[in-house]
């Protein structure tokens, strides 16, 4: 019985780690023409002390959705890519509390018919605090009572720091951009339920940017004004299946759907009707965890359908991510 509980605990940690890695690969506003490169949140497995996460994103652009939601191709001869190296660390503060930080480094590679720009800089940094509204592993092998269906519930608060290069910095042009240029506060909810070998997670996040002063656009000083980016909402739903080897290593495959929306910005208090965007995407993740669940290696492919109606005012991209996480007990 004790062995079974230990087994459950280990599996719970493994599955949740992988689920959290998948669910918090939030779609970034990545186009170098629009800013991007924000970090992602990390969730530390229950009962572990800390976790390192290192991942590398390759995001390739292929067209965009206009303000009516119609998909439009990029100009002929263009090849637009962004690469991000993300370094994350999560640390347990108390049995129910944890904190994390994620810092990306961003490379923009933009090729047009008569223009090529390769630039790089640090992206926007994310800092998060999470509260776990449960004390024991919520993963079960069998459902024998309604309590077995209770999910693990996490409440999160986050702060995005504008450490990236924004249009309001001393930049040459939009190709230099690696960040949004404004602080953002987020409130998050994560629900996670595992009935072996199946897993489901749901996340929702609401963020509000702080208003800021602007006195420079693309390196040129302008008459100062105040700007507030629109509120941001994103949610995702994922389902996963875990296969265990005889040596208790695990291979988890997860399918996720993500929805991202940002409302219209305000300039000197007036709405900017040309801003705001929406994006829907699906993602497939394959994650491999060692038997002791201390190391997780993952690969994710996030895809946005190049069809009308899957987005608005936003680039359509494919994101390929490889990463590794190390959990410290």
């Amino acid at each position: 019985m004790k062995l079974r509980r230990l087994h459950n605990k280990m599996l719970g940690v493994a599955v949740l780690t992988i689920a959290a890695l998948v669910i918090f690969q939030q779609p970034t506003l990545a186009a170098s023409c629009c800013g991007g490169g924000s970090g992602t949140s990390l969730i530390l497995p229950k009962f572990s002390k800390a976790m390192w996460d290192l991942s590398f994103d390759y995001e390739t652009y292929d067209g965009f959705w206009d303000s009516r939601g119609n998909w439009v191709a990029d100009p002929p001869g263009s090849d637009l890519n962004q690469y991000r190296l993300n370094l994350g660390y999560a640390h347990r503060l108390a049995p129910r509390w944890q904190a994390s930080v994620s810092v990306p480094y961003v490379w923009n590679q933009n090729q047009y018919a008569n223009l090529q720009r390769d630039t790089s800089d640090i992206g926007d940094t994310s800092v998060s605090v999470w509260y776990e509204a449960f004390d024991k592993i919520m993963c079960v092998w069998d459902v024998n009572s309604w309590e077995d269906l209770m999910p693990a519930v996490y409440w999160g608060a986050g702060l995005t720091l504008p450490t990236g290069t924004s249009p309001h910095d001393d930049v040459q042009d939009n190709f230099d951009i690696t960040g949004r240029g404004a602080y953002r506060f987020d409130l998050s909810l994560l629900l996670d339920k595992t009935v072996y070998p199946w897993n489901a997670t749901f996340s929702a996040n609401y963020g509000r940017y702080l208003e800021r002063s602007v006195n420079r656009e693309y390196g040129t000083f302008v008459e100062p004004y105040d700007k507030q980016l629109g509120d941001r909402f994103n949610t995702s739903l994922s389902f996963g299946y875990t296969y265990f080897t005889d040596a208790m290593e695990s291979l988890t495959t997860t399918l996720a759907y993500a929805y991202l929306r940002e409302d219209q910005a305000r300039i000197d208090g007036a709405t900017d009707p040309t801003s705001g965007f929406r994006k829907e995407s699906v993602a497939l993740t394959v994650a491999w965890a060692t038997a002791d669940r201390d190391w997780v290696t993952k690969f994710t492919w996030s895809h946005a359908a190049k069809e009308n109606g899957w987005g608005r005012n936003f680039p359509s991209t494919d994101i390929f991510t490889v990463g590794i996480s190390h959990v410290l007990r």
Partner: protein
Amino acid sequence: MYYVKKLILIFSTLMLLGCGDMMDDLDPSGSDNRLPVVAGSTGNMPGQIVADFSLKDSLDSDFVLSDHLDGGASRADVVVLYFTMWCPVCLAHSDHMLNTIVPSFANRGDVVFALVDYVSGSVAATRAAERANGFANSAFITLSDVNLSVFDQLNGAMGSVVVVDSDGTVLMNEDYRNGVALSAVLDQQLP
């Protein structure tokens, strides 16, 4: 504790590496740091006179700025140049200009509204992009800045708009934002 210290060290290093630009956003300034310009001098800032230039439009015809200024064959009260790279932001701005700004001033003088394409690299590609984005046969003239000459001359950027008065004076050179500033300039300038 060891890991916390390590993290702080890494984070501090990253902050220091990029602190030049980073501080502009971490502690944004609302000060007016615009440099004074000599009115009537040649340049791209408001108050300066823009040097003449010539570009091909998407139909392979010549567009010479001075033709649309005082004394030119096709004088306009104002020339509006919008720099586009056919991106979501550019398209949102262009649509807004076409559907809101252009109709608002349709009966107030002569205005040239031009999209300056600085990424397509050829007149044919500019024509294709203009069509793909729905601006063929619109109120816009689409100009092909193949060598980025006007982009550099006017210190252009994605989504920036330059307004030139009929005497060649730059009235505005900044991001389009929500179109309010452009509308105000046109309202003040047009009969």
